């Protein structure tokens, strides 16, 4: 059971079950806990090799026990996402804790990933349960529906879920090369049906200032 204590600390109540958490993100615990480092994101040998190859490495630990465990990482804001069968796409660096029943994996993102400065691959979380996602400042959740497509700055994107199509749109014109660009040279357009999480801050991206 996940609950937020303030907006930057996550408390997880456990009764013998387990969660997967970012390595070293435990700040306190109460009761009996065991912490086990999972190699390769806990996805077995194949996952380990995939993560090594794709650069979506995450060091994950399994926390198992009875009681309450608190997690936090560099005072980042924490956002809870509940999944009921759908797939959440999130950057591995933004993933804090997932319930043990959720499957994690890697997927190819193509140009979107490259424009975010996060590499070409992203992490997926799938199944039933809760996920804690970190963001720089509280995330805003935006709905994408067929009548309302959404355009997001790659540096502010943190995660999305649902059945959405992404396309990459570029505002690069000859003006960009004259130093008169619109400041939003690369954008990701989401169409379909789902939710997109954005943070009120921009990572440094390639061409972020064009």
């Amino acid at each position, binding site marked *: 059971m996940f609950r937020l204590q303030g907006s930057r600390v996550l408390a997880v109540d456990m009764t013998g079950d387990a969660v997967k958490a970012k390595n070293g993100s435990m700040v306190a615990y109460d009761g009996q806990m065991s912490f086990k480092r999972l190699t390769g994101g806990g996805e077995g040998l194949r996952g380990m090799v995939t993560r090594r190859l794709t650069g979506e490495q995450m060091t994950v630990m399994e926390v198992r026990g009875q009681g309450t465990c608190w997690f936090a990482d560099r005072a980042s804001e924490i*956002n809870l996402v509940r999944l009921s069968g759908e797939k959440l796409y999130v950057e591995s660096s933004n993933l804090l804790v997932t319930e043990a029943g959720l499957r994690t994996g890697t997927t190819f993102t193509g140009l979107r990933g490259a424009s975010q400065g996060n590499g070409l691959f992203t992490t997926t979380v799938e199944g039933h349960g809760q996920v804690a996602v970190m963001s720089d400042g509280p995330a805003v959740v*935006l709905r994408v529906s067929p009548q309302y497509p959404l355009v997001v700055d790659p540096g502010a994107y943190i995660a999305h879920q649902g059945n959405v199509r992404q396309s990459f749109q570029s505002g690069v014109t000859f*003006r960009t090369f*004259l130093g008169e660009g619109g400041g939003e040279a690369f954008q990701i357009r989401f169409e379909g*049906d*789902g939710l997109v999480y954005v943070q009120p801050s921009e990572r440094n991206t390639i061409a972020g200032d064009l």
Partner: protein
Amino acid sequence: MSAYGTPGAGPVVHDPTTLPADDNVNPYTFCVDLKGSQWFLQKGKMIAYYGAIEFNGIGHGRLDRLVRTVFHSPLHASDWVVAEGSGRMLLADRAFDVNSFDLDDGNLTIRSGNLLAFQPTLALKQSIVPGFLTLLGTGKFVAASNGPVVFMEPPIRVDPQALVGWADCPSPCHHYDHGYLTGVWGGLRAMTGLGPVSGEEHQFEFVGAGTVLLQSSEALMAEQAAGVLPDEPGVPGAGRVSGTGGQQTGAPSLPGQLGGLQRRFGL
């Protein structure tokens, strides 16, 4: 409408019908409602938008008239863009607090790094205080601050790092703590740089009627270049880029360089 409803105790999900119009979504995110209108914003502060919105550098030829009438930080401020179209646009700045302020036929001077966006009904001018910009007229603007903004009435002395801006009152002057600067200890400190220091020996002093805006921290935001001041006698800070540091990099643009020229031609 959508299969992805708000889960029980989950986060609030926004769509264009629930996003506020020209108001804060949360303390760190501001939503602008564009209805075929225009907004000026600092480059790269848009995080997401619904609808059809175009972003153009202020050198864009079609915007020449607009820039000429309201953007007086003249031909230099390439860090500003104009958003144009219809839809809802979210603005944020490095997870700092953002707030909107309404000016009603007023004037407000603000640190260049703190101003995020403004309506073209306001006119933007360089302040003669280096590193500050002045907004004149009626309209709405959005400013970022490190921690929430507090409003103070003059007469007041404020810490230079906490000052965000001021409205309707005369420009501030420097104030020094003379008990600290004079006497034997003062002389020693001036000569050696040693001695007890409280860090509060220098303030900005405001007098007259108006409002002073302070941020609740002393962490300065990176300044944005506000343009080179004309190099004439009598201009304070003349000949150097107002708003030092910040994003102004590379060689200073010489008159006649392509950068200046192509802006002149409205490319």
